[in-house]
Structure formats: C-alpha cells, structure tokens
C-alpha cells in the first residue's frame, strides 16, 4: 500500500498507475467512460494520496474528509484511486459493471468501501456536498468536502442552486473542482450549450475561483491546499483539463466519452501512459 501524503513526484507516478487501472478496467468491462475518467485523474490522485484526511481501514470514520464525484460516470477513476489507496482489493477492478460486482456502472455508496455518496444522475453531487458541509458546521467537525463536477454537468440548473446555497451559508469547508475538459456526450460543451464565462459565473455566485492546469501536479496540490485553508466561503477550482488525457487517440475526441477500448487499443494506451511515466522519472 502506498504511503501518504505523497510528494508531487510520487503523485505523478501514482496518476500514471491510476490511468493504467482505468484503461484495463474499462477494456475488461467492454464498457465505461474513459474520457472523463482520464481528465479527472490528476485531481483525484492528488486528493486521495495527498490532501484528504481518510482512513482506508475505517471508510465511514465520521471525521473523515468527504469526496463526491458528481459526474458519476467517471467512476473508474474513483474506483482505481480507492483500490490503490487500500479501501478494497485491486482484484475487484476486473469486475467493473459485471453482475454481482461491487463496482456498478455508476458508484453505489452501499456497495463500495470509500464511496461517500452514490452518484450518476447529474447535477446532484454539489447539493449533497452542501448538505455534508452544513452537517460538518453543525456538528463542529473540521472535515472538508471535495466535489468534482463536470463542465457538461454545469448545464444542470441544480448546480447553480447548490452554488447559491454554499455562498449563502459561507461554507468554507467545501471545495468544488470543475473538470473543464470541454467535451460532453454529444459534442463540444461550448457549442452544444455554452457555459462561458464560467469563472465569472462562479465569482458572481459568491465563490472564490482559482484557475489551474488540471494536469499539472505542481499547480494542483497548492490549489487544493489553498482551498482547504481558505475561510469565509467556498472555493471553485477551475481545472482546465483534456478529455482522455494520457492516451493519444482519446485526447479531445468526443467519441471516447463513453466507449471502451478493444485489447489492441488498450495495449497501445498502456504503452503510452507507461512511457510518459518513465519520462517523468
């Protein structure tokens, strides 16, 4: 099991491992969502191996930090991070989407140790996070709530209901990370239904906005640490990402939102990810 908290270099290595897990798991399942899993990988890796106060041996520890993947279809990245962090045995990863598996097509909190909230229907996770953050304030716990939302998901009106409420209650114990990968199921986000100027929208809703390259671990870690330390209100980290990041033929290609690679494609992807990993060493 990996030691934590990791250095930035170790996080980069772990992110590559998580990317390999994602490719293998979706290839074996012959279904799943690689594009949005790979765009969120560096952020999720930084959270689970550096930022979050959690205990894999006690996944429902009341004082733990909470993580919600509101864009629940990207759950392969969550499953891989939890398995690598020791919440459950890695052998489960080969059972994604199979009958009887703990790893449902969208995450189920009652089946998987470490999943803090069931997700899948979009536009709900930030509201759930607001509820967790309010409960933390009321119960005087110092846990932090981390919510990853999608840019396509930001078309859901309920995201903005949640944004308004987090600002009303000055929730400084919640951070939303917008995985701004520019693509959704059907097409480009900003052609299908534009969300720009998205940073200004969040600021107008009362959030502090921090913009980063969502694949630069040297930027991700301080942004997350800063968000945790900020008092007085919620923070939105606008993480500019690449859908399918790390696999050449998937990057910025809409079709890889919800398509599984065949074995040959997976082998190529794993080769590319491992080569990048070696370059970083």
């Amino acid at each position, binding site marked *: 099991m990996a030691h934590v908290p990791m250095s930035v270099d170790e996080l980069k290595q772990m992110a590559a491992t998580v990317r390999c897990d994602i490719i293998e798991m979706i290839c074996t399942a012959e279904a799943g969502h690689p594009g949005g899993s790979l765009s969120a990988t560096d952020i999720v890796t930084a959270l689970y191996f550096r930022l979050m106060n959690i205990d894999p041996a006690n996944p429902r520890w*009341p004082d733990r930090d*909470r993580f919600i993947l509101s864009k629940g279809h990207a759950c392969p990245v969550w499953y891989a991070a939890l398995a690598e962090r020791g919440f459950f045995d890695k052998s489960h990863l080969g059972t994604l989407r199979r009958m009887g598996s703990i790893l449902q097509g969208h995450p*189920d*909190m*009652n089946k998987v140790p470490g999943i*803090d*909230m*069931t997700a*899948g*229907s979009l*536009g*709900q*996770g930030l*509201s*759930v*996070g*607001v*509820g*967790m*953050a*309010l*409960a*933390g304030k*009321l*119960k005087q*716990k110092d846990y932090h709530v981390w919510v990853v939302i999608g840019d396509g998901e930001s078309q859901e*009106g*309920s995201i903005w*209901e*949640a944004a*308004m*409420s987090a600002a009303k*209650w000055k929730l400084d114990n919640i951070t939303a990370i917008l995985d701004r990968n520019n693509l959704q199921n059907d097409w480009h986000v900003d052609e299908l239904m534009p969300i720009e100027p998205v940073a200004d929208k969040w600021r107008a809703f009362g959030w502090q906005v921090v913009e980063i390259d969502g694949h630069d671990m040297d930027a991700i870690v301080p942004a997350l640490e800063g968000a945790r330390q900020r008092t007085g209100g919620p923070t939105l980290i606008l993480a500019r990402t690449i859908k399918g990041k790390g696999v050449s033929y998937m990057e910025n290609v809409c079709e890889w939102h919800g398509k599984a690679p065949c074995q040959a494609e997976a082998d190529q992807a794993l080769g590319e990810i491992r080569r990048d990993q070696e370059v970083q060493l």
Partner: protein
Amino acid sequence: MSHNTRSYHHVRPEVIPLLADGKLFSEGAKAPTRAAFAQTVIELGHANPDIVVLDADVSKSIGTNKFAAAFPDRAFNFGIAEQNMFAAAAGMATAGLVPFACTYAVFASLRALDMVRNSIHYPNLNVKIAASHSGITPGPDGVTHQGQEDLSIMRAIANSTVIAPADPDTTVLAVRAAAAYEGPVYLSFTRDPVPQVFRPDYPFAIGRAVTVRDGADVTIIAMRDLTAHALAAAANLAREGIDARVIDCPTLKPLDEATVLLAAEQTGAIVTAENNVYFGGLGSAVAELLVENDPIPMKRIGVRDTFAESGPYLDLLDKYGLSYGHIEAAVKSVIARK
C-alpha cells in the same frame, strides 16, 4: 339512535353521533394535518439534537417557521430550490443528521423526484420527506399546487415508506414513528382542515392498517382525509341495513396485507378510498394484492384520469367523486356483485 359505539375502535366518542349525514364535516373540530406535523417536529427537535428542518420558502405555510424560531441553528431555508434541498438533505443524512425536508407534495414528488429517487432512496438514506398540500386539499390553489399523484409516485420507488395519516392526532403519532424509523419516509399532509376523528390511543405503527369500525357486509379501506368520509359513509349505510367495516390505512407502503386479506375473506367485497389519482396508490395496492390472492368484487374511489380545479375543498371532493356519498354508491355497487 342506531349507533353502536362498541363497533367503533379508537374513534372519538363525540364524533360518532356526527358521522351520519356528514355532520362531521360541518360541525366537528377540524385542523390541517400539516399543523400537527409542524408542532410534532418541534417536540422531536427537543428530544434529538440531530433533527434538522429544511424548507423551500413555504415554511410559513407548513408551519415549520416555528421550528426555525425554536432551533435557528438547525433550520435551513433553501429558497425556491427544491432539487438542491432534497439532495442536500441526503448529504446531511450521510453525516448522521435526521433531516425533515419540507415542501408541497407536487414539488417533493415531481419537481425534485430525480433527487428524491437517486440521492435519497437508492442510497437508502435517513431523510424524512414532509409533503404538505397532498391530494386535492389545497382546494383554492388549483391544479399546480394539488399533489394528486404523489402517493402513487412515491409508492413506485424502491426503499420507500409512504405514510398519510388521517387526522391531526394520528399525524403526531406518524411523525414520531417516522423519526424513529431508519430510512427514507414520505409523509403526506393536508393543507385544508380535516376532522379530528381518532382518540390518542390509536395504535399507529408503520405498516399497520387499523380496523376502526367493525362490519360484515363489505370493507371500506381508506387513507388520509378520506378515512373520515369512509366512516361517514358507513354510518349512512348502516341506516340502510348495510354493515360496512372501515379500515384506516395510514401506511400505503408497506401495505398491511394481512389486515386487507382478512377483510376480504370475512366481508367478501372491498371499496378503497383515497384523495389521490385512482391508479398506482391505495386502490392499486389493494387490487394487486387481491387479484393474486382472493379476487373479490372491488371498486376504487380516487381522482379519475383528470386534473381538478380551484374551489372549496369539500366541494372539490364532491365534484371529483371522492366524498362519502360517492363511497356509499361504490359500496352498493360492489355488494350487488357479491
């Protein structure tokens, strides 16, 4: 007087003489069940610091603004944003709070239904959904505020428990029971005043239907505000020599199958009565049970396949076929088919 008080159970003695001719509705003591809920949640709040109340800009109407006054740190008004409120309630429940999320039935069961299904019932979280204005009891407000489908919709969702108490005093018992139950509970309340029917010894339990009038010829199974109408119908039918059993069924789900099947066996005909669309709710639940076990003559009283309109509550019940006169006609028609 032909009234035999021994044939009634848990019915207030002063109510029994008012049952015939529907005098109960003009002369008896009345109150909306939403008000009993609002009082009870304050009592629960004193007993359990984890109980919180969530509102969506109708706290003055439901009466939960009184909870907010008593427990300002534990009351959260989300504004006109029901979707956010219900998903936030789910988040609170994961952290050990016991949220009562309050709005009107139409908004709880329709506008926010995706959140209610996917963030509350699928993960089976301990959220209490408190829905006022259920049925066509917001008479004057009209169709957009009449929750005439909520019971059917909520019954269709896995992990759901659906409760609709008949009167103010049984509402107190139902809200206490919901708070003590671990898991999602949908509580349905009336906007309009309904008669105080039952004594405080009413044996409320989740999943229990209660025989409130003995009878051998037919059984009327009713819920929420139509239980009083069922009792009024039975009193009128008695004068015509028809001995109707009345069962109050405050828990739509899980249905008390044993009590329904015993009534079917002993009386041989059943009428259901609900202020709710006549498909998917109480009538459907009873019909589904009977058709697989003991198919006997049956008729369903409920809102037919239509929207209602603005109007006085009791007049609407009459026009849309729900009041005691309609129940009496339904009873006669099923007895004729025995």
